[in-house]
């Protein structure tokens, strides 16, 4: 291939086609004190892409509370690390694979799983679980069905083979994501404190090794691609799709963990976006060192690759390792056992430069720091509230006609794919391998894993609500953090850390930038108030199709700790005759609800207002009730409101409920409003007094709603009028058949 010369690059503005602005190009020239060559330009283009450099989100990161007693590693490494006691720590991180999944759903999702797992085991942790948060258009669209089925199959195909259980997640269907699905994957690992390993290239003269899969031409400029809007031309423009190889990943996991255990590793980093370029410069810049590489030594899958291609390849299942000087043979022996190449390609230097040779020829020479996240430019943009808010906020939910019966509405809500059972999805995921999954998908608001050899449990969840954020980014984002925490609390776990995934449109649009700004503020405020430190994060911007941005969708992955796993709680009712009660405040907010969408087909209104003080008190009360063994089920109220919450607890148990709403008001608001800070619990009648005491101590209202029955499900108004009369079998059918019948 004939690469353009530095002069041609300037003359023809070739940097533009790589996604760099004129000003960014000038800045590169200034840093280097000369014109960059083609390879160097490519390295900057990828590392200064939004995907790698967080150019628009980084200025906000200082808002996040990132420290806490349990935080062993906050943002800045491959993943966050929180202490869970007894010498154990949990490592976790969320990452998006939106653009690749939009183009090739199976491989896009599969490589997303592979990438996030590498972020975990590069820290020395064994991956013990993965979760995912997915957004698609409506299932009536054939293309959406194809994307949905492909993404689920890809997650299953990779996760099942690699032997990491997929234990939880969420799927939303809304037109807001029709052309641009979201695929966020979270991985969780477990590590002994002494095994925690960093991605640093320190120790001048230490060897630098490439280990794992061979390098091919796949995914060159993938990170740049992920930082642009999807257009009709995207299909043409896309780099060669990366193909995941879970078999190699499995071997890589075992080899890396064995290597780290051997004690010879100085630093290790996976090669994700921007491959060798990003791993080398991140490792060097963290350590304040430099790295010298000879790319002719990198094991190749294809002949004739240029320096540019080797430096930017995004071939999967590869790592960069800096071992101690005398340990090269140890590394080689361990990798040979697993049939994987491990090759010395360079060494650590002390001058802060990334120097790339192709045999004897110097082909690139740039300061590591300037390439790294900290060296990339950041942008503050104009922010402006979007015009649509005027319309959505003028919505008055009392314009919806009041009905005498809401049975059909409840069935329709249970049948809506966003609320319906996700069994069709999770039965394709091996959620049991590794023998830790104590609370399985579909059984509670979060999954619970045991920690073998201890009495502890870890609860994990991933949550988002794009519609609420769309209607009010600040309140919506508060709600996302509150809901994730509530989900953990409903299993009996104390939230101990979170990681975020920011999925937004094009930040250069003032309206999108405003959404981003407001939402990040919301996440940060909620994390601070609820005392849950932010251990890491990921951003995916430019999620648009045909010029239309997605719903702004911040996702929160959260980890909680149960000191005693025997105290875990699930969401299904347990026994006929148990009292059903609401822990929390009366809530009637219909804005942004599934019910409004059902009735109007739109996202309208104000989303629920979040009161973090109430939220905190509620969560404390729920944890105390669980710890004292007072309740038999706990289920948080979210999409579909109180009625859907109770229906789900019935369906999971194959029991019924006789509920009388103890409040006056519009039945639709009481049944289907999505106000926060509410948890439905069930308990033996004998425990009522005790629970009352616990609730009062936290100053949280406790309201009796009804009783668990053997199958009849009724909701009755304050004045005795029946609002819903049905049977659990009917509810179950609507809820369980929803996805299968749409995908048949």
């Amino acid at each position, binding site marked *: 291939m004939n690469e353009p010369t530095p002069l041609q690059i300037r003359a023809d503005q070739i940097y533009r086609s790589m996604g760099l602005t004129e000003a960014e190009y000038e800045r590169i020239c200034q840093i280097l004190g000369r014109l960059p060559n083609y390879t160097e330009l490519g390295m900057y283009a990828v590392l200064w892409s939004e995907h790698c450099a967080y150019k628009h989100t980084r200025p906000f990161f200082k808002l996040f509370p990132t420290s806490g007693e349990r935080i062993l590693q906050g943002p800045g490494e491959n993943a966050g690390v929180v202490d869970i006691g007894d010498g154990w720590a949990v490592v976790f991180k969320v990452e998006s694979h939106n653009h690749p999944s939009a183009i090739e759903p199976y491989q896009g999702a599969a490589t997303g799983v592979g990438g996030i797992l590498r972020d975990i085991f590069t820290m020395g942790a064994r991956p013990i679980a993965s979760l995912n948060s997915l957004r698609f258009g409506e299932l009536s669209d054939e293309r959406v069905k194809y994307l949905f089925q492909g993404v689920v*199959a890809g997650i299953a195909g990779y996760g099942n*083979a690699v032997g990491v259980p997929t234990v939880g997640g969420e799927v939303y269907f809304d037109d807001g994501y029709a052309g641009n699905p979201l695929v966020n994957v979270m991985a969780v690992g477990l590590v002994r404190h002494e095994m925690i390993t960093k991605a640093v290239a320190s120790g001048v003269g230490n060897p630098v090794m490439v280990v794992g899969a061979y390098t091919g031409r796949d995914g060159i400029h993938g990170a740049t691609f992920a930082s642009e809007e999807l257009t009709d031309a995207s299909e043409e423009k896309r780099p060669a799709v990366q193909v995941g190889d*879970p078999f190699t990943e499995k071997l890589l996991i075992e080899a890396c963990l064995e290597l780290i255990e051997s004690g010879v590793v100085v630093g290790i980093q996976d090669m994700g976006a921007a491959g060798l370029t990003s791993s080398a410069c991140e490792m060097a810049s963290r350590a304040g060192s430099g790295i010298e590489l000879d790319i002719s030594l990198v094991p190749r899958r294809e002949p004739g690759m240029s320096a540019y291609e080797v430096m930017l390849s995004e071939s999967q299942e590869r790592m960069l390792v800096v071992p101690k000087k005398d340990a090269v043979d140890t590394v080689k022996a361990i990798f040979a056992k697993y049939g994987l190449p491990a090759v010395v390609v360079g060494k650590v230097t002390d001058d802060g430069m990334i120097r790339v040779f192709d045999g004897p020829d110097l082909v690139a020479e740039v300061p590591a720091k300037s390439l790294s996240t900290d060296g990339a430019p950041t942008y503050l943009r104009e922010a402006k509230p979007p015009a649509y808010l005027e319309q959505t906020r003028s919505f008055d939910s009392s314009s919806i006609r009041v009905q005498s019966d809401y049975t059909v509405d409840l069935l329709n809500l249970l049948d809506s794919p966003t609320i319906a059972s996700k069994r069709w999805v*999770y039965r394709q995921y091996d*959620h049991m*391998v590794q023998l830790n999954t104590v609370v*399985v998908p579909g059984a509670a608001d979060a999954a619970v894993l045991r920690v*073998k050899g201890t009495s502890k449990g870890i609860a994990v969840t991933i949550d988002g609500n794009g519609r609420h954020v769309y209607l009010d980014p600040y309140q919506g984002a508060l709600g996302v953090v509150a809901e994730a925490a509530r989900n953990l609390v409903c299993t009996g776990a104390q939230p101990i850390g979170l990681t975020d995934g920011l999925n937004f449109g094009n930040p250069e649009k003032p309206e999108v930038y405003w959404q981003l700004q407001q939402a990040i503020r919301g996440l940060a405020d909620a994390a601070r108030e609820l005392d849950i430190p932010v251990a890491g994060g990921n951003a995916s911007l430019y999620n648009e199709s045909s010029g239309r941005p997605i719903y702004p969708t911040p996702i929160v992955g959260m980890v909680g700790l149960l000191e005693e*796993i025997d105290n875990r709680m699930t969401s299904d009712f347990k026994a006929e005759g148990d009292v059903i009660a609401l822990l929390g405040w009366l809530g009637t907010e219909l804005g942004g609800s599934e019910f409004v969408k059902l009735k109007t087909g739109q996202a309208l209104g104000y989303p629920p207002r979040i009161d973090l003080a109430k939220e905190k008190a509620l969560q404390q009360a729920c944890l105390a009730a669980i710890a004292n063994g007072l309740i038999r089920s706990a289920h948080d109220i979210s999409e579909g409101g109180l009625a859907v919450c109770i229906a789900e607890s019935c369906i999971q148990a194959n029991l019924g409920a006789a509920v009388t709403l103890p409040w006056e008001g519009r039945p639709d608001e009481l049944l289907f409003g999505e106000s926060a800070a509410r948890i439905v619990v069930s308990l033996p009648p004998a425990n009522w007094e005790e629970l009352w005491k616990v609730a009062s101590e936290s100053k949280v209202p406790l309201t009796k709603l009804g009783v668990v029955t053997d199958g009849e499900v009724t909701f009755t108004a304050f004045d005795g009028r029946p609002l819903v009369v049905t049977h659990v079998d009917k509810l179950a059918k609507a809820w369980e058949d929803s996805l299968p019948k749409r995908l048949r």
Partner: protein
Amino acid sequence: MRVAVVVFPGSNCDRDCHHVLSEVFGLDSELVWHTETDLSRFDAIILPGGFSYGDYLRSGAIARFSPVMESVTKAAERGLPVLGICNGFQILLEAGLLPGAMLVNESLQFRCHPQEITVEVDRTPFTFGIKPGTVLQLPVAHGEGNYFIDEAGLAKLEANRQIVFRYAGDNPNGSVADIAGICNEAGNVVGMMPHPERAAEALLGSTDGQQIFRALINYWEGRK
């Protein structure tokens, strides 16, 4: 009792089997890498589940040529109890230690859920002392568990009482005659799709899988 749990590249239930054998039953269990050629020190062999060699050509097709398989074959011929679980079952089929073959699930999808199975015969070391007709709840987790054998082969399996487990209720994969597990003619080599090791601790929801390992222990103690 010393039990070998063979680890092929890509196995992923190896540590699970090892955990149950050693932590739940206190047996002397050892993880054996696939390059090992001498298994003579063991009293029983387990080929665990997973995706050996990525299951890239056919499940188990490449693993059957691993160096360790020669000694597995020898041990099987000697009458040693050999259990293949999930991918281990697929490897035993590919290796010709059990008859038949696996096809992709009828649904074309991976399936992971608790599944009821019926124990058909008690003549194997892994069902020793379990009353035929006993229903166990064990998880399944596979994409290629659709057991196939031609009619003559099936007739032979039935005649020789080689069908060890059948799915009760819904068949998760479309297997012939609802077969969930079979044995060789001698009865010492058993392959099964469900995972007994995933149902061996109350914390994980079912202890029915303990019966399979308990049967092996009872069988072995009776032979001592």
